[in-house]
Each structure stands twice: as C-alpha cells, then as structure tokens.
C-alpha cells in the first residue's frame, strides 16, 4: 500500500503518544496524530489547545486552533491566561507538538525571522505559544520537513529553547519542561543524546542514510542501533484517510 511522506510522519508521531498522555495540540498534523493515537494505541489521551480547550472532542476537522467545533462537546474551556498558568506552567502537559521554520542540532526552534532579527530576510509569525510550550511541556515532539535550510547547525534566532547549547545549559537555566524528545521528519526519526544533540534513530522505509545526512545542515550523528521505521499499517492508513482527513485537507495521499 502506498503512502505519502506526510502520512508516514503523522503515523510515526501517533505511535510515540502513550495512553493517558495530555497533549498540547496544534491543528494539522499534530491534531491528526492525536486523533489517530486515540483510535489505536492511546485511547485515553487528553487534548489541550492553547485557545483554552481541555478534552476537545471535535465533530469535524478543526481548521484553526480556535475552531468552534473544539468547544462544543469539550470537557472544559478556560481563558488563555489560565491555559498557560493552570495547565502548561503547572506541568500538566505531557507532550507539546511544535513545528518551526528551522530546528538546529540541539533542538532549538526558530519561528521568528530568517536572517537578522533587526533586518530580517523573512519576517515569520513569531513565537505564539511555541516558546512557552518548549519551556514548560514535559516533552516536546518536533515535526518538520527534512531539508538542509530547515535543519541548520544553528538557528538564526532561538524562538523556543531546545537544549540551547546542550542539555546542561538547559538544566542550568532551570526550565521546568524536559525539552525536546523526538524530531519526526519525512525522512526519519531523531532523538537527543546525553549532550542534547540530535541523533538519527530510525529511517523511514525507502529512504537512504546518505539522503538524510545530505539534507541535514550539520554532520548528523547516527545511532549505532539505527532501525527502519515500520511502514504504516493498513489500519493506520484507513483511519487516517477514511475517518480523520477524508477530504485530504491536511495530508496528501500516497496513491
């Protein structure tokens, strides 16, 4: 069965979610990954949205992070201030999903500017809740396409801290959250070693190691126990395509 790189990413992310996890969700791929996990490996996860929605139960695919379908039938809705203080800062979020324009080898994320902050080549949207999630969620899952310009050795601007200059630096700063635990790209899965540096631990089926390395902006570490990601199962793809994104709004199909 054919599948797209986006489908592989979504499915790989879903598999990393444990039952009972409280997940701070964005729209698009993270939302699909959570919904997929709920139908398979993690029926009891709790989805929290930065708009202040706890335990969303959307009747349709939400098109924005504040979609009204997230509210109707949700367990609880609070203010933005409350979601950042009572939930995120309180340590109640197990997993925060983040994407970014750039991620560097220590898992630092840039969604602010390409180029110099005061004279940018591209002015991006800025942190939003990303820096807060990166600082406060127990784990951060990063999703992004695997391209050299998206994965530079050093980001142009640290919007959201990963391990900054290494795991010890994050510890020294006393950030409550544990930092990034996994990066899922269209080419593979990366984790962080004891220094806080990204290590390739799994390659998606059909991808060459050289291709991954060539598309990373630094000399990428590779795990001695590198594996190949299990391809999507029929069940995973069926749920994704038939139940979660039947119109293919978020995910291109592989067939």
């Amino acid at each position, binding site marked *: 069965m054919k599948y797209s790189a986006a489908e592989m990413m979504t499915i790989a992310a879903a598999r990393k979610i444990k039952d009972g996890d409280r997940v701070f969700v964005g*729209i698009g791929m993270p939302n699909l990954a959570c919904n997929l996990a709920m139908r398979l490996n993690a029926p009891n996860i709790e989805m929290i949205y*930065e*708009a*202040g*929605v706890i335990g969303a139960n959307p009747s349709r695919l939400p*098109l*924005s*992070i*504040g*979609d*009204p379908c*997230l*509210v*109707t039938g949700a367990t609880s*809705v*609070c*203010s*933005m*201030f409350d979601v*950042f*203080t009572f939930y*995120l*800062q309180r340590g109640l979020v197990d997993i925060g999903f983040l994407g970014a324009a750039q991620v560097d080898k220590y898992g630092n994320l840039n969604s*602010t500017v390409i180029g110099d*902050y*005061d004279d*940018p080549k*591209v*002015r*991006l*949207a*800025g*942190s*939003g*809740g*990303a*820096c*807060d999630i990166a*600082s*406060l969620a127990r784990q951060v899952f990063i999703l992004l396409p695997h391209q050299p310009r998206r994965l530079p050795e050093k980001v142009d*601007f*640290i*919007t*959201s*801290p990963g391990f*900054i200059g290494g795991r010890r*630096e*994050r510890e020294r*700063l*006393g*950030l*409550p959250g544990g930092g990034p635990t996994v990066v899922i790209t269209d080419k593979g899965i990366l984790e962080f070693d004891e220094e806080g540096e990204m290590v390739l631990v799994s390659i998606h089926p059909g991808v060459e190691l050289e291709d991954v390395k060539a598309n990373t902006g630094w000399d990428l570490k590779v795990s001695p126990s590198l594996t190949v990601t299990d391809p999507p199962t029929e069940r995973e793809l069926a749920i994704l395509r038939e139940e979660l994104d039947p119109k293919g709004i978020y995910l291109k199909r592989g067939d």
Partner: protein
Amino acid sequence: MMSLAEAVDRLVEDGDTVYLAGFTHLIPFAAGHEIIRQGKKDLTLCRATPDLIYDQMIAAGCARKVVFSWAGNPGVGLLRSFRKKAEAKEIELEEYTHYGMVARLWAGATNLPFFPLRSNIGSDLPAHNPNIKTVTCPYTGQVLSTVPALNPDVAVIHAQRADAQGNAHIWGIIGEQREAAFAARKVIITCEEIVSSEVIKSDPNRTLIPGFLVDAVVEEPWAAHPSYVQGYYDRDNDFYLEWDRISRSEEDLRAWLDEWVYGVSGRREYMARFGAERILKLRVNSQYSVPINLGSYR
C-alpha cells in the same frame, strides 16, 4: 448604548494604544473597520494574534506599532501587510510569547506592575525586547522572567450577549477578553444581541465583564465576521483563504478596502453586500447547555 461609529469617534483617539480582543473567536472586525473608516492613525495595535483585522488596519495605515506574539493568518500562513511593513520597517514591532502577552494584560488588569513567568528564559526574545526582564524569587532564589503590565487606552470586546449597561456574557473560547477589559482605560463592548438584565443575572458566573467598566455598548450582529461567534455563526474559512490572495497585491487590497470598508457605512451594509447565501452557509444548528439551578432564597 450608542452606534459603533459614535463609540469609535468618542473613545478612540489618534496615537492610542488599542487592544481588539479575542483569540480566533469573537474578533471585533466591525470595530476594526470603523476605526479604518474614521481614519484613526498612529495607533499602537496590541493583540496576541494580530489576525486579519490588524493586517487590514495596518494596510489601511492606522498603525504606528504592533505589540504581538503570533502574527499569522491562522490555518493559512503569514499576514502579508504586516510582513511587508515590518520588513520595510514602516511599523515598529514589540514581540512576546502568547503567555507573555496575556500575562502583560493580566498584570494590567489587576494593577500589578509586572508578572513573573517560567518562560522566555533560553529564548532569544529577551535579548531583543528590553521590556522582558527577570526577578529573583525571594523563597527559592530561582530567576524568573518578567513582563510589564499592559494597560491599553482602549479595549474592544465582542460578546455574545450583554445588557444595556454592558454586563457581558461570553462563552466558548474566552481568550483574553476579560483581561483586556479590566486592563484598559476605556472599554467598548459590541455584542450579537442586547438582552434584558434578567438574562444576564440568571447566570452571574457567566458575566466576565461588569458593566461599570464599559464606556460604550453597541448591538452589532455579525460584528465578528469573518471570525465566528460560538452558537451564533461559523468561521468564514473561505475568507481567511481569500485574504491571502487579496493581500498579495496592493491593487486588490485597495479595491477590497474600498468596497468592504470605505464603501459601506457599517456592518449592516457590509452584511447586505455579503449576501444571504453566504450568511446561510455560516449558520449553525442549536446545541444548548443544561441549565443550572441558582435557587430562589427567601
């Protein structure tokens, strides 16, 4: 109670710091358009999410500065007018995280000069924003980041229902509306419907904004379009996509402002032009809350 035109004329001045509140939900587009129509300028526009409304106000030349945390078109991409003027340095930017922005409002709303938070540290934001400082906890010795109180000159809040005094019920995503109203020196409430005080008082826990904070109450149905009002109408996602196209060219943008902002006298005309078909497309079926019993105590 007054018209929106009168409220904006009386309460918004050139050079003011304004906060049009609402996270995705209840964004006061009608008030933003009225501010454009009245040619207000040199405004400092504050919003966690500038959204299309500030992109439109920036395009129309109302803004001197934008204070924000996420300047995107939600679910679509970037804000083109914001980005163009920011890159050309035609507007000044002051930037926080979402938590930082709402914490600034919360401090302003509660008369604290600052708010301490466990974010920002490790980010490059503080190095580029001198308003982000630190404080040392007197108990643990930990260093926490701080943001200063934000007290806008004017806040505009769109509510589902309010009474004639401005006591407002808001439900669904309640964003930062309450903080904005308490933080601001002047408050304009627009609402989908003015209801009797009995409706408000039937559920006092729902009243997020007390009327005595409110300087103007305006009944303005559909004031949040193209954003949405929980229980009243859906988000016009098509327009969010359309704006991305419109704002690509200066010409299309001018034509849009001419037709939909300058070319109408207010929201009623805007909706009339918008047409019945699209209005019907955004209607929602009802789903009511189970009432609570407050009890009658004698």
